[in-house]
């Protein structure tokens, strides 16, 4: 009897460990958990070029199914995500940031803000992203803040975002970017300007 109980307990505990570890490593549990996944890191912007392809490992496949469903394969688009500012602190709604960068090695690009659940923040500001057309040629910058900046600068609203991250989409990426991302991508900078109104 005691022997049967110990085997039964082993099955239950083993199954729970297997389930929990798989969900945890793949970033599926607990809800909203941030995961430093990916095989590419350019200035803190992380990507996995296996996204959307059969080559994706089981962890990437599971995570992408949850956080990047219907993402394109890398020959058509690559996606970089960053959840930290230039000092390494998490991006927060309570802070104001300056996002800046230069030309991107792609036919079209955008930077979009998502909340911890990978959804657009629940605001009505109509200021969810900056894209190549808004940015124009050369260097560009945008202010990330919960309120519209007074100086007419490009704005990405973080209102109702809580702790958030940014996704950089690069459509029609140049082949050189796929071959040497660290050399070919000039990663956008995220400078924290203030938090709760204080520098």
């Amino acid at each position: 009897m005691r022997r049967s109980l110990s085997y039964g307990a082993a099955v239950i505990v083993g199954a729970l460990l297997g389930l929990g570890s798989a969900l945890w490593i793949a970033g599926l549990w607990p809800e909203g958990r941030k995961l430093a996944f990916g095989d590419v890191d350019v200035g803190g912007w992380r990507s996995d070029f296996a996204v959307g392809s059969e080559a994706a490992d089981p962890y990437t496949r599971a995570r992408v199914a949850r956080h990047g469903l219907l993402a394109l394969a890398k020959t058509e688009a690559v996606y970089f995500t960053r959840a930290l500012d230039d000092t390494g602190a998490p991006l927060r709604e309570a802070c104001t940031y300056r996002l800046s960068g230069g030309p991107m090695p792609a036919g079209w690009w955008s930077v979009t803000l998502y909340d911890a659940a990978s959804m657009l923040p629940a605001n009505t500001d109509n200021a969810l992203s900056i894209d190549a057309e808004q940015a124009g040629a050369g260097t560009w910058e945008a202010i990330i803040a919960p309120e519209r900046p007074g100086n007419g600068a490009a704005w990405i609203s973080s209102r109702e975002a809580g702790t958030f991250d940014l996704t950089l989409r690069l459509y029609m990426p140049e082949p050189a970017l796929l071959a040497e991302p660290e050399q070919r991508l000039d990663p956008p900078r995220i400078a924290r300007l203030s938090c709760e109104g204080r520098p």
Partner: protein
Amino acid sequence: MKTWVGPLVVLLVCAAAVHALTLHLAPGFIMDRAMAALEARGVALHAFTTPNRVTPQSQSIVRSSPDLYYSLCRFDLDRPDASLTVRMAAWPDYQSLSFFDVRTDNFVVLRGTGKAVAVRLLPPGSAPAAGAIVSPTARGVILIRRLAPDAERFAAAGEAGKGDACDLVLQPAGTGP
């Protein structure tokens, strides 16, 4: 032999098996839920659905871009005599036609900037044919993306989308339309 060795082995084997099984099943499970959610939101089977512009209030897929027009068609080619005729109408800017299986793999993407694209989608196991794609799984999703970063161009993309098609054809796959 120590009495705890047997249960420990069982625990480790169970943990490894459930770990692997969870990872194997998770994408399909999530895709199933996503397809059910798309159906609940009116995304049709075998037809492209005219989308609303992506906003915080209308979004249904994680990490959708507010700068793109997305039109979805769910498909189910469970019958061997079923196929799909898929057409992406012309659009002057970037657009693509992408196919996803139930494992979330993007098994084909066709770019169509400035032009229309037409192709047939055949059920799994079909013989390759000119102008046709064989789907790895019977069910999946087809997605048209069009670059439309403002309301005016989104409305224009909607007009262009009236020429899109995702039509089920019930006949031997090799004798297509």
